C-alpha cells in the first residue's frame, strides 16, 4: 500500500512539474511578445521623428546626409535594448530584434499606406535596412561581453556598414540622367514626378553644403563621421537602457 501511495505521489509530482513548465512557457511567451511589440513601437517612433524623411524617400538617400543621420539616430534603441536584455537575461539578439521589427513595421506601412493608399511608387518609398550592422553589433557584444568594446568597434562599424549594406538597393537610383537639359539622378527624377505637398524644395536636404565641391571621397567622410558619432550615441544610450531597466521603488509611501 505504501508503494501504491508512493507511485501516486510520483505521478502527481510529475504532473505538477509539467503544469509548472506550462505556466512558465506561457509567461515566457507573453514576455517575449511584450518586449518585441513595445520596443519596436518606441524605436519606430524614434526613428520616424529623427531620421524618418531619409527613410521615406529615395531621393533623400544621398551620399552625405543619409549615411550620417540614419545610423546616428537608429543606434539609440539597439544600444538601450542591448543594455537591458544582455545585462539581465543574456539575450544576444537585442539589436537584431529592434531592427527586424523596425523593418517589418516600415514595410507594412510603405505598402499599405504609401503605395496602396496614396499611390506613391514603392521604389520611391522603400525603407533602408539596418540588419547587417545590427547582427554585427549583437555578435560583438555576445563574443566580448563588454559594452565598451561593443561601442568602440560595433558603433564604428554601425556607421561604416550602413551604406554598403544598402548599396545594392539604391545603386540604380543614383544613375545620372539628363532631363530638360539638367543633370540629375534617377531618384531626383522620381521625386519630381511625385510631388510631396509638405516638403517643399527649400527643405529638401540632399547633398547640400561645401562637401559637394570636393572632387570625391564624400561618402567615406560621411561614413567615418557617422561611425564616430554612433560610438558616442552607443555609450549614452547604453546608460539610458541601463537606467530604464532598473527596478526602482520610490521611497515615499503611496497616499
Amino acid at each position: 500500500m505504501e508503494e501504491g501511495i508512493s507511485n501516486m505521489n510520483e505521478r502527481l509530482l510529475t504532473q505538477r512539474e509539467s503544469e509548472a513548465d506550462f505556466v512558465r512557457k506561457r509567461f515566457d511567451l507573453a514576455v517575449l511578445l511584450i518586449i518585441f511589440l513595445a520596443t519596436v513601437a518606441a524605436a519606430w517612433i524614434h526613428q520616424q521623428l529623427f531620421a524618418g524623411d531619409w527613410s521615406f524617400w529615395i531621393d533623400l538617400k544621398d551620399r552625405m546626409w543619409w549615411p550620417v543621420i540614419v545610423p546616428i539616430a537608429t543606434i539609440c534603441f539597439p544600444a538601450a535594448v542591448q543594455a537591458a536584455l544582455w545585462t539581465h537575461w543574456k539575450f544576444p539578439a537585442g539589436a537584431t530584434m529592434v531592427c527586424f521589427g523596425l523593418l517589418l513595421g516600415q514595410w507594412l506601412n510603405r505598402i499599405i499606406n504609401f503605395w496602396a493608399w496614396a499611390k506613391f511608387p514603392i521604389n520611391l518609398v522603400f525603407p533602408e535596412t539596418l540588419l547587417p550592422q545590427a547582427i554585427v553589433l549583437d555578435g560583438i557584444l555576445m563574443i566580448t561581453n563588454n559594452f565598451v568594446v561593443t561601442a568602440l568597434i560595433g558603433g564604428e562599424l554601425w556607421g561604416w556598414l550602413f551604406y554598403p549594406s544598402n548599396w545594392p538597393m539604391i545603386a540604380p537610383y543614383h544613375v545620372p540622367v539628363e532631363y530638360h537639359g539638367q543633370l540629375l539622378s534617377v531618384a531626383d527624377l522620381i521625386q519630381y514626378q511625385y510631388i510631396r505637398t509638405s516638403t517643399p524644395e527649400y527643405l529638401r536636404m540632399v547633398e547640400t553644403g561645401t562637401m559637394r565641391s570636393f572632387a570625391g571621397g564624400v561618402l567615406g567622410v560621411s561614413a567615418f563621421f557617422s561611425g564616430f558619432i554612433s560610438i558616442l550615441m552607443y555609450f549614452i544610450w547604453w546608460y539610458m537602457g541601463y537606467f530604464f531597466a532598473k527596478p526602482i521603488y520610490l521611497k515615499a509611501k503611496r497616499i
Partner: protein
Amino acid sequence: MPVERNAIFSIEVPEKSAFSLKLPLLGIGLIFFLNTIDYVYQRLFAFTKGLDYSTQQYQQYWMSVLYAELIIEALIALFVVVYLWQTRDRNLENLSPAEELKRYWIWGSFVLMYAFAVFIAAYYAEQDATWHQTVIRDTSFTPSHIIEFYQSYPVYIILGLTFLMYALTRLPQFAKATSLPLVILVASPLMIFPNVGLNEFGHTRWFMEEVFSAPLHWGFAIFAWGALSLYGVLVTVCPRVYSLIDQVYLGAEAPSASIVIENPEACINPLFCSCERNALPNK
C-alpha cells in the same frame, strides 16, 4: 532545505484555463477589428469627403467621428479607473500564491494588449506621413489625425491606465510602494497625447511643413523613450512570478503577500525569492 512531498500537494493549484490566451487574444482581436474598420473608413471617405475642412461633408463624415471617439474614450477611461479602484482588493495581505499568480497573468495580458496598441499607434504615426505628403492640411483634425492622435493614442492610454490601476489595486508588489518604471511605462507614452497640442500649435503658428525630423516633432520621440522602462517593470515582476510558479506547483518557499507588500524591493532580488527547484525529496 528539502521540501516535504505533503507540502507540495497541500497548495492550491490554479486550473490551466487561468493562463489561457483568450483574454490577450480577445483584446488584440478587438484592437485589430477597430483598426480594420478605420482602414475601410479611411479608404472610403478620406479622399472623397476629407479634403476640405470647411465643407459640410467634412463635418458629417470626419468631425462627427472625432467627437464620438473623444466622448467614448473619456467615458471608458473614467469607467475603467473608477471600477478598478472601487473593486480593489481590501485584503491583499492574505492573498494566496495561486490567486496572486493568476492575477499576474491577467495583468500581463493587459500589458500585452498595451504593447500591441502602442505598435498600432506607431503604425498610424507613419501613416500620417502619407497623408501629409499627399494633401496640404487646412486643419489640425485631418482624416489621418482623427484616427492617429484621437483614437490610436487614447486606446493605448486606456490600456496603460488599466494595467496600472490593476497593479496598484490587486498586486502586492505595487500596493504600497511606487514602482518608478511602472509609472514611467504608463505616464511617458501617455504624455504623447498632450504633446499633440504643442505639435498642432507649432504647425498652426510656425511650421506648415511636415518634415518628420523637424525639432517640433521631437517631443513625441522623447516621450516614446519611456517605453524602455518596460524592462524595469519586467526585472521587477519576473523574479516574483517565477518564484510563485515554483511555490504553487513545486512547493518551494517564497515570501508571502504581506511580506511583499511591506518590502517589495527585497522581493525583486532573485536570491530573496530563491526557490529550491532541486530540493525535492530523492532528487
